[in-house]
């Protein structure tokens, strides 16, 4: 199975491909057969989950991530407030101790709309491209994007309401994100306006933090309400072209989550917390083609699955090196 192509296909909206039994490696088949002999009872599974829930590293990656996200966004604010010129600008484009940085998607929209690329923008774009190739692509989403942060709380509320059956969650076809991507690119190209920036909660929130709040926050609030009452993580899952841009970068990144089938109980806790559960399709029984399976590039490397897995079957890896963390 080609990791690169499967990653792209899933990212563009195709359902994960189910392996035929003959596609599974012999070792994996043996593991699955062995597991069938020693099935955990529901009570045993519950007990194990409960024990894991109490463990000290239960929120390790989430805490690291939130810390990073808050520090990065605060650096922008503090740097401007105290005029220390550490990070100037906003998430769309900035200068970090003098070095140009440009958000890949914002830069793309500007290049398509304006149809000229000045050197500084090119330098900023290449720098950020290399940075996120190294760090995992959609790592931007979960480790930096301020909208992702607030959407996580909206998501918690949504899941609670859905559990109590107070709302009826709605899903959409993931392929629509690819359609949006093309449409926003074409709109920029044809109209010459950076149409997406008007809607981007990432840009709106970043600017609101740095330059003060405004009317645009109403739009962000609307998105959050939609995600609370209608569709879980709708913006990130179905619309945001920033996520797709960084997802494409992530296909060639060495940092990703790796799944090991050996101890997995296939209870599916990881898929329940995941923003993009299709990437964890391989954790379903009989879906892993190999003993170790790298998780696809649409993964935001948020680490919620790593944190929640009671059997340590999911871990960050730096390809060619040992597991991280």
């Amino acid at each position, binding site marked *: *199975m*080609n990791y690169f*192509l499967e990653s792209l296909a899933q990212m563009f909206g195709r359902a994960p*491909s*189910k*392996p*035929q039994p003959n*596609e599974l490696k012999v070792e994996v088949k043996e593991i699955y057969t062995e597991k069938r002999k020693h099935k955990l009872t529901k009570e045993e599974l519950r007990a194990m989950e409960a024990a894991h829930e109490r463990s000290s590293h239960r929120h390790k990656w989430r805490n690291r991530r939130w810390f990073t996200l808050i520090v990065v966004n605060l650096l922008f604010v503090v740097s*401007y407030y105290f005029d220390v010129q550490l990070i*100037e*600008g*906003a998430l*769309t*484009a*900035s*200068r970090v101790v003098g070095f*140009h940085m*440009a*958000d890949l998607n*914002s*830069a793309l929209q*500007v290049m398509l*709309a*304006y*149809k*000229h690329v*000045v050197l*500084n*923008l090119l330098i900023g774009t290449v720098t950020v491209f290399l940075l996120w190739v190294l760090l995992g692509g959609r790592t931007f989403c979960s480790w930096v994007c301020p909208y992702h942060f607030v959407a996580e709380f909206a998501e918690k509320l949504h899941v609670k309401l859905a559990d109590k059956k107070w709302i009826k969650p709605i*899903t*959409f*076809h993931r*392929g*629509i994100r690819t*359609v*949006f991507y093309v*449409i926003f690119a074409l*709109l920029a190209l044809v*109209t*010459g*306006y*950076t*149409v*997406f*920036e*008007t*809607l981007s909660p990432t*840009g*709106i929130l970043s*600017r609101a933090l*740095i*330059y003060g709040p*405004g*009317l*645009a926050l*109403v*739009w962000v609030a609307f998105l959050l309400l939609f995600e609370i009452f209608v569709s879980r993580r*709708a913006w990130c899952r*179905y*619309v945001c072209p920033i996520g797709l841009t960084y997802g494409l970068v992530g296909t060639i990144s060495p940092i990703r989550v790796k799944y090991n089938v050996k101890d997995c109980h296939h209870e599916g806790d990881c898929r329940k917390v995941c923003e993009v559960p299709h990437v964890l399709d391989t954790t379903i029984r009989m879906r892993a083609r190999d003993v170790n399976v790298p998780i696809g590039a649409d993964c935001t490397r948020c680490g919620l699955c790593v944190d929640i897995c009671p059997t340590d079957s999911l871990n960050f890896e730096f390809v060619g090196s040992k597991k991280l963390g």
Partner: protein
Amino acid sequence: MSTEKRGKRPLSPVRQEQNRREFIRTAILAGGTMIAALAGYIPLASGGVQRLRPPGALKDAQLDEHDFLSACIKCGQCVQVCPVEAIKLADLADGFGIGVPHIEARTQACDFSCDGLQCVLACPTGALTHSLNYPAETRMGFARLARPDSCLAIQGKGFKGQARGPDFTGTLRYEEVDRWNPIPVADHPYDLELCDLCMRQCPIEIRIAQCEAGTPPSGDPNQCPPRHAIVFESIGSGKAMMPVISDGCVGCGVCEMICPVNPTVIVIDIDRSADTVAAQGN
């Protein structure tokens, strides 16, 4: 790639219905998002949002700022470097112009107190064009005497006190006070026999005076403006004089900000510039 055998099993009627509904839902999501996205054009449709832009903001020969909105990456680096904090970013009401910088001259004009056009240097995309090197080359707009009848100079009156009152928060750099730090206009009262604040504080006129005194800004003769921006002409026999805007005006807005009359006598037109005025010969 996998050997998928989709064609082998036809979808159950239930599954087909689910797919159909998902498709409809998704189409509605797409439609809704597109409407929201294109709504950003509404503020631009009727001639656009009329705003004074920072120095170097891209404009074509007809002064259309389409390219400026395209090229701006909405990051606010220009905001951060401005010593007088003249630059603000637009909100959602500006539609596609969201996050794009502008200046409200009456509140805080650009007085070029950075000398080196810091906003232009900070701009990562060239939306504030890098082909601009000196304040005198700027074309933000063009000043106009909108209410000559209330002009103190035309009435032959002087002015004493704080130009915009004690509560005004705007700042200017007064070369004679502090070369490096702009101070509040409220902290710098005037006592003038004939009010000439618009000309007195005009950054172009200040530079011309410095150059004539042999001390150009930053010691750089290139900083010397080639033409006057505003001159005072005698009217009648008394001490009354009339401010006349000249083709060296760059439209920075300091005259609009400093004018002690309320509402201001002098305003910046953004649909004109020194170039268009020269081309039209008026």
